[in-house]
């Protein structure tokens, strides 16, 4: 399946290669570089690139391209999903997945890649299994035979988790440890947790339960014909947050190309405007419902040029602690098979995904 893997950094250097079958020359990456040149943005490199003898399937994470070399038919998602799993594993092991971290831990990286694929077919991709085989660098490597360590029996724990309003959930996907039958029959999540952090379930709230978005935006952005000035006025406010604070608010927007500079005045937080990329970014912080944060001022436009006809969109990130705006609640958590009395806690947090406001 996966023949080889090349890691390429933002400046186009191949800084790691691994082959699971015969060695494929790194010159195969030239096709990737060609595609990269054709693409206007780094994320526009096609994930699948056919070359005369191979296919290159790549993902871009943390400004590193993970390029897998394939020789014959294989579901592209299979490779893509696997590459993302590799990145997740690196992140799990080294805290970050950067070129420096990978280079510093090159031996561990190599051992991981060796375990994750055998002859190009995934072998061990679960974090807990890998950690049994290869110790993360932070844990002191003992000279204990890692293999015998594996045979230790882990205490088996069942944790049925009851969610309060299962009708709310429109679409769910599970970690493989969840017993699907139990969920189907009783709407209880029963599972034996693997060690470490893991995502138990992802859910989508059905469209019947319209979730109120906890932030609203008032905007007034105008460009006048013939004038070299534009007006910019943006105010944020909280909505139905049940007294919880909207925090870590960050607004970013790509302003039209005609905008030369922006002279703005934030009521709180700091803003930056990059005149080259035209990227406006405003770090708002918390939203105080009594005193709504605003960003006002003028934009200077290219003299003589006609007014831009595109409207900027705003990407808004935020967090709300101790609240799930979907209304999802964990009803109870039971643990079986353990003798000690565990500490049980649940933390709710709402975090904006890809939230975009068109103007």
């Amino acid at each position, binding site marked *: 399946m996966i023949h080889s893997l090349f890691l390429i950094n933002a400046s186009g250097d191949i800084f790691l290669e691994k082959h699971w079958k015969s060695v494929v020359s790194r010159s195969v990456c030239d096709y990737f570089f060609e595609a990269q040149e054709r693409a206007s943005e780094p994320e526009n490199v096609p994930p699948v690139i056919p070359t005369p003898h191979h296919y290159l399937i790549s993902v871009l994470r943390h400004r590193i391209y993970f390029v897998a070399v394939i020789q014959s038919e294989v579901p592209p998602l299979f490779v893509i999903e696997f590459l993302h799993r590799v990145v997740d594993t690196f992140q799990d092991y080294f805290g970050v997945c950067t070129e420096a971290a990978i280079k510093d831990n090159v031996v561990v990286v190599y051992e991981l890649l060796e375990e994750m694929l055998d002859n190009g077919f995934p072998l061990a991709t679960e974090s807990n299994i890998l950690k049994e085989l290869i110790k993360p660098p932070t844990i002191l490597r003992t000279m204990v035979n890692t293999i015998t360590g594996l045979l230790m029996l882990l205490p088996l724990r069942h944790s049925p988790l009851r969610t309060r309003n299962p009708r709310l959930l429109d679409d769910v996907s599970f970690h493989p440890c969840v017993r699907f039958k139990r969920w*189907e029959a009783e709407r209880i999540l029963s599972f034996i947790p693997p060690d470490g952090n893991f995502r138990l379930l992802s859910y989508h709230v059905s469209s019947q339960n319209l979730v109120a978005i906890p932030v609203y935006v008032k905007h007034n952005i105008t460009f006048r014909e013939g004038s070299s000035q534009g007006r910019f006025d943006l105010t944020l406010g909280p909505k139905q947050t049940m007294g919880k604070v909207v925090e870590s608010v960050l607004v970013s927007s790509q302003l039209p190309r005609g905008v030369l500079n922006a002279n703005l005045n934030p009521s709180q937080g700091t803003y930056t405007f990059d005149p080259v990329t035209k990227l406006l970014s405003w770090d708002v912080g918390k939203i105080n419902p009594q005193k709504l944060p605003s960003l006002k001022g003028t934009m200077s436009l290219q003299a003589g040029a006609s007014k831009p006809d595109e409207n900027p969109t705003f990407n808004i990130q935020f967090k709300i602690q101790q609240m799930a705006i979907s209304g999802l609640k964990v009803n109870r958590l039971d643990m079986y098979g353990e003798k000690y009395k565990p500490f049980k806690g649940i933390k709710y947090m709402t975090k904006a995904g890809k939230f975009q406001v068109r103007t």
Partner: protein
Amino acid sequence: AENGEKIDKSEQLSFPEETRPCVIPGCFSARRHDDLKEMLDSNKDSLKLEAMKRIVAMIARGKNASDLFPAVVKNVACKNIEVKKLVYVYLVRYAEEQQDLALLSISTFQRGLKDPNQLIRASALRVLSSIRVTIIVPIMMLAIKEAASDMSPYVRKTAAHAIPKLYSLDPEQKDQLIEVIEKLLADKTTLVAGSVVMAFEEVCPERIDLIHKNYRKLCNLLIDVEEWGQVVIINMLTRYARTQFLNPNINDEDEEKDKKAEAVTMAKRKPYVMDPDHRLLLRNTKPLLQSRNAAVVMAVAQLYFHLAPKAEVGVIAKALVRLLRSHSEVQYVVLQNVATMTIKRRGMFEPYLKSFYIRSTDPTQIKILKLEVLTNLANETNISTILREFQTYIKSMDKDFVAATIQAIGRCATNIGEVRDTCLNGLVQLLSNRDELVVAESVVVIKKLLQMQPEKHSDIIKHMAKLTDNIQVPMARASILWLIGEYCEHVPKIAPDVLRKMAKSFTNEEDIVKLQIINLAAKLYLTNSKQTKLLTQYVLNLAKYDQNYDIRDRARFIRQLIVPTEKSGALSKYAKKLFLALKPAPVLESPFKDRDHFQLGSLSHLLNAKAGGYQELPDWPEAAPDPSVRNVEVKESVRAVGTVTYRDTGALWGLQGPQKMEGSEGLCSALTPTTHCHLPSSESDSASGSESGSEDSRSGSESDESKEASESEEEEEEDLKTKKNKEKPLKKPVQESERYIVLSNSSQQREGEAGFLCTNDPQFRMNSCRSAETVFYKTTQQTSDSPGLFSPQTIAPSSALKSYELLHRITGEGLSVEYCFSRQPFIPDANMVAVQVHFTNNSTSDTKSLHMDDVKLQSGMRVKEFPEIGAWDPEDTATAVMGIDFCDSTQTANFQLCTHTRKFFVSIQPPVGELMRPFFMTENEFKKEQGQLMGMNEITEKLTLDVKCRNEHAIVQKVTTAANLSRVPCGSDKECRFAGRTVTSSSLVLVTVATKDQGAAQLTVNCEKMVIGTMLVKDILLALTQ
């Protein structure tokens, strides 16, 4: 030299302790590696480890470390596991280049293969099989064969992994490897399943026959296989199903093709009945749509797309839409597949229209794919929403995306006539856009749209003619010129002027524009030669000396055609017809049209070109191959299945092997409900294996079973002890099924009479398959006195069958006819209800050649007549069986009963309860199915039970008499549940009777056929209250 320099620097950075080597690269590496060699030769493990780490770092960076081979290979037997692991890494990388030296290491691995520790055995095999040295092929072959029968499933998994390695090294080993694959395919552990199917796909994907016997097992294991194995298995099973089952949509597709012929073909063809194995695959893959792994979700989605009946494909939409919230690469692949799907099954994604709206931050390639999907989803009802959305997109800063949006608007306009003018107007407005690319794209699209109704839009053509002064994009200029030429009669004044301007700029134009200028000139010459003769000749003269030979050719060709000379041939007479023929408007098609001839989710589908190693998705067979090839005889204890399941062993990875896990808590938890699924399936196999229902085959399998039972008894006991909550559901149904047997005893004789104990019926297998109940049935069978007489059919008590009168003695002039619904499967056609007809000749004379005639039926209904009954004496009786397909309705079947002298008009109307047959399911399945039949499909009535039927037994009897349903095991004694499927469409019918205090009860019927549901409620209500 520059390269060498680079190496120097990076080497220096990572190894600052080293002295700077000399400049010549070859020399430097030889000298530099000396210290590494020294370290490897030392006695200290720490030094060796340090050296190996550096070497691995070199390999990782793509540096050549092959000269260290002799020094490294010596350490292959090193005791230190850390060093050993890195030596293995090195060995696998360089063995191919240093074949002779690599052989030195082989003996170490051969020793490792015999190690008592399964992990060492596995790792030895893994490295040995990764060494690509042809000379060791026989050793590898031997090792693989041995490992394939290793007791550790992990070692067997490694053996499966080694198969494709050996195959790529030496394809001549194929036959031997297939034997190993065959052996491993029969393995019952989830750990091996994915890996061996992978090997199958790489070595012998054409050997579909190897799958037959393992098909059901693979389906049942699937949910517990690790994610990557699931993908491979699902893709393989998709192909398998395409060769073994019938197209579930065959009737629908015919409808589309030919509505008239439909009636004829329908009558000829047997109605479609889904093979239970086909259903099994669909049912067992469905839960995997909830996997967190995008590749698994995609695999199931393509399986449903290619294999499921139309009505069921919809479930995949939601899961695919979920994947759109994942990484952009995942989105990219999913959207390509959704784009293909939306062409064939638009309705499926329509509810998710908004999920395809485009964010300004999406990468362009994602935007364009979403646009494609939105365009495919556009129809009369949603087009205004979509166009409004498109309007926003046109203002985007991403110009490639804007161009794609304009194309999309064009496609919507051609596909949906209602909005054509709106779109055209919108596009015309874009002609005054400031961005030239936008204008150019609009021109191209408008040109295509105008071709549909040119006469209505001459003002737009005029408007576009003016654009030639400003617009520079060649494609757009060419489009405008073509338009003017084609419709020059609509713009008679402007056209010659445009040609004049173009003649002036001819030499500076791009080739495509030049060709269109020549075209324009030719067309004008033919329609308006007075004004344009000279201009045309001028243009043709310019073209004659053009650098491009296409243009020179075109000019020569056109001159010969349009300018009459004495030499010009017969063709010039037809010049006008040639140039100004009515041209069909272009069809704006999705580039994803017909891409589904590639298996969805595949690389080939994504590239729209066959990738190496792609296995064609076969067409459905005309007639289904023999389904019995998938039957398996039960030999060994099926309990072993599922003891090692992926999810329960978690980190353990099943490494303990069954022998270590037995009795431990691990085993008990491993016996999740999934284990129960494996049991009945094998039970059903043995049942259907006894085709004729003969005594000996029954007893044969029984002795097997009893052996198996004694084997698994111990295990079961422990199971029950340690897992108390399991005990309850296990015990209860046993009691229940005992009661069933008492009930069915009464009807035994009747069945013997009817002679319908034949088990050669697919429906039968489906019924008996995969329900826990059949297991209980089996256990009670061993204790009861009448083995062999039961078939699972009799579990449904068919106590006294009610007889209905068909022909009264008096009207029949001595011939009296009664009929009853025998509740047996009708062998010639599973979709028919069996009607047993009982004739009594009360007259004094003989009756001869009794037969049916003149059958009058409602549309869709079918009758299988009983064979003619010859002569029979006065006072004699006769019985015959006929089959009627009532189409799941209580319509009457009218026909004539004819004797040699008389004809009688008679009719049969079924009670609704006879339109179904029992269906066995577990409590969980029942609940799940019930959950899906809510709302309109659920009917609930409150009732007060008749005094006589206030106990469970009576309720069961009343309900099963009223309707041909089977009891579903139930944990609560307050509820009785019944399940069945309608005979024609196999729609589920679920009945629940919940009892409360003092005879109060609630009756719930869930059925997607609402009419059936309503009628059934009435009938059961009547039965329970009287």
